């Protein structure tokens, strides 16, 4: 069990990172940006059914956290779902195909945007139910602990989800058992139309103390290194057996809650929006990379061009992929095939 005195606060990434890692951060942020921009366009064109939530504006928060995890580490997420697997290194083609519902999608077309999962990179699933995947990540940490395999687990969730009771059950369980799990709250300051400050009593990061676990608030969630730093510290604590950490990252989403959603109310102030748009995490990090001499503008242009090509490829892969056969709807419920009764009347067959 951890006591509150283990809490720490941090604001800026100061860990030494090699050039490759720094460029990988920018690459992954760009992947999220261009993947989501494309998905947004495809929604408007009617090429993606259902609902899509982008992480545009939140790339630093996503990538900073994911890059602090090892390849074997676990992760669960939420409806704002593309960034997480992309941040963890998932290839774009099967993700895009999933958004369209193609058979080559990462979930075979069964999941869609809301329920991406890519077990190959430790992505145990995005959850359309707000808060619901927090216990899942906690359980992955439990298996890591019981099996002693040294893995760490991270749960992404929003400021809205931070008011679901299961988070506190999870924090208490993880604190009691010193589980290697990180609870990462993406505080983009709104839950759909609801400003966090109107429905959140107290400060999310400060909730850790009462549960005897470490808590940290990253005030500048647009700074990928600050997020990386905080998460990395938490990962190291977890791997050393020192238990869980709650990280609250303050950030902002640049798009509407979901693509295509049109609300009559301006629940976000125009000046506020503008101020945040100026703190584009990708622009900021690019400036940092150039200023620090990590890469030249030309190199970073080339990097971006590569990412755009990747997204084009993902779309081409998607376009070339077939839709799944209708019978696929009846597979994968159980590990063994399950015959269903009276499906005959379903499609008008007599």
């Amino acid at each position: 069990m951890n006591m509150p005195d283990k809490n720490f606060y941090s604001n800026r990434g100061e860990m030494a990172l090699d050039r490759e890692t720094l460029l990988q951060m920018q690459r992954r942020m760009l992947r999220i940006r261009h993947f989501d921009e494309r998905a947004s366009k495809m929604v408007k064109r009617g090429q993606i059914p259902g609902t899509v939530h982008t992480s545009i504006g939140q790339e630093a928060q996503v990538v900073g956290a994911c890059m602090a995890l090892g390849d074997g580490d676990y992760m669960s997420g939420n409806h704002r779902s593309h960034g997480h697997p992309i941040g963890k290194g998932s290839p774009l083609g099967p993700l895009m195909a999933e958004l369209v519902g193609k058979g080559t999608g990462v979930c075979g077309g069964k999941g869609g945007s809301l329920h991406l999962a890519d077990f190959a990179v430790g992505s145990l699933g995005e959850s359309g139910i707000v808060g619901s995947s927090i216990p899942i990540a906690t359980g992955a940490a439990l298996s890591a602990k019981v099996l002693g395999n040294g893995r760490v687990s991270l749960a992404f969730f929003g400021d809205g989800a931070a008011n679901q009771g299961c988070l506190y059950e999870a924090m208490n369980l993880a604190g009691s058992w010193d589980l290697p799990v990180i609870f990462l709250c993406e505080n983009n300051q709104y839950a759909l139309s609801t400003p966090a400050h109107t429905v959140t009593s107290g400060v999310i990061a400060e909730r850790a103390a009462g549960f005897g676990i470490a808590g940290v608030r990253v005030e500048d969630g647009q700074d990928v290194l600050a997020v990386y730093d905080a998460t990395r510290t938490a990962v190291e604590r977890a791997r050393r057996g020192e238990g869980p950490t709650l990280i609250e990252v303050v950030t902002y989403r640049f798009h509407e809650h979901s693509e295509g959603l049109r609300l009559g109310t301006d629940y976000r102030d125009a000046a506020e929006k503008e101020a945040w748009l100026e703190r584009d995490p990708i622009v900021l990090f690019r400036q940092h990379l150039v200023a620090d001499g990590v890469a030249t503008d030309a190199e970073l242009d080339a990097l971006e061009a590569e990412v755009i090509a990747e997204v084009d490829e993902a779309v081409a892969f998607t376009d070339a992929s077939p839709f799944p056969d209708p019978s696929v709807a009846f597979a994968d419920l159980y590990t063994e095939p399950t015959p269903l009764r009276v499906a005959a009347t379903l499609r008008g067959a007599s």
Partner: protein
Amino acid sequence: MAVMSYLGAIGAAQREAMEADERVVIIGEDVEANVYGTTGAGKSRKDKGDFLEMFGSNRIRNTPISEEVIVGAAAGAAMTGLRPIVDLSYSSFLYMAMDQFVNQVAKNRYMFGGQASMPVVFRSAMFYGLNTGAHHSDRPYPMFMNVPGLKIMVPASPSDAKGLLRTAVDLDDPVLTFEACPLWGLKEEVSEEEYRIPFGVGRVAREGSDVTIVAISSAVPESVAAAEALQAEGISAEVIDPRTLVPLDVDLILGSVARTGRLVVADPAHRTCGAAAEISAIVAEEAFDSLRAPIVRVATPDTQIPFSPALEKQLYPSRDGIAAAVRRVLGARPLIDAGV
């Protein structure tokens, strides 16, 4: 009379109820901003009819995302003088508060020997058929039917939605309403006057004599369409919409089966232990002598809901599937021939 959509009718009922009784409050996520379209006449806060402006934030309660305490607090408030309408948006989120539904909302009046009354309405919408995947497509009314103490409405038309919701708010017992998003856009003439439709009274959506189709929620218009198609084949199908599942208008169903001798139940819920199972079992027990053919259920098969448009639509009761089921019960050899 005015043309109202299904969603508009719900909004109108809520507005009437809020105006009629100060104890009625609306509690839910994003109700201030009218995200789900039933807490404001217009799409914009500035438009005429915005609930927040009309009723104020004391009665329009925009909540954190905390379904368990929302449901429980509404129950506690109902036990102590309020008459809350809780907007839970998607029906898939009800599970979050299952303990409160089963152990508090449904049981308190009974357990406490009648001391508590529980005048509270829990609204939620079933988003099935809209490619939102397994987490947002649930139709969970059967599990609530298995919980004594709850009342359940499943309106299939704008006018029923309005009239039943007014009754629901008046009742001193807890009501769950399951709204059908596939019907959100449905429009018809609806009275702008106050009116109420009683619980436990079904509606004959279409008369017929050869077979009874009991249809639930979005299966009602599909069944009516099937009946129309079957008419061309000389088959006369009666379509019954029970409108409320608890209480259920058993007499209407039994009376119809007594005339037609045949029953198809069309139910968008999962098949096993669904509403169709219950209706079938009632008829097999209480109208057996009238039955001339097997009872056929057209329900969603026992699989979860896939996202892909190539996969999802086939799963729900459709006009074609319902018509095929009718043909099947009519094609079945009469029992007398079966040598019984």
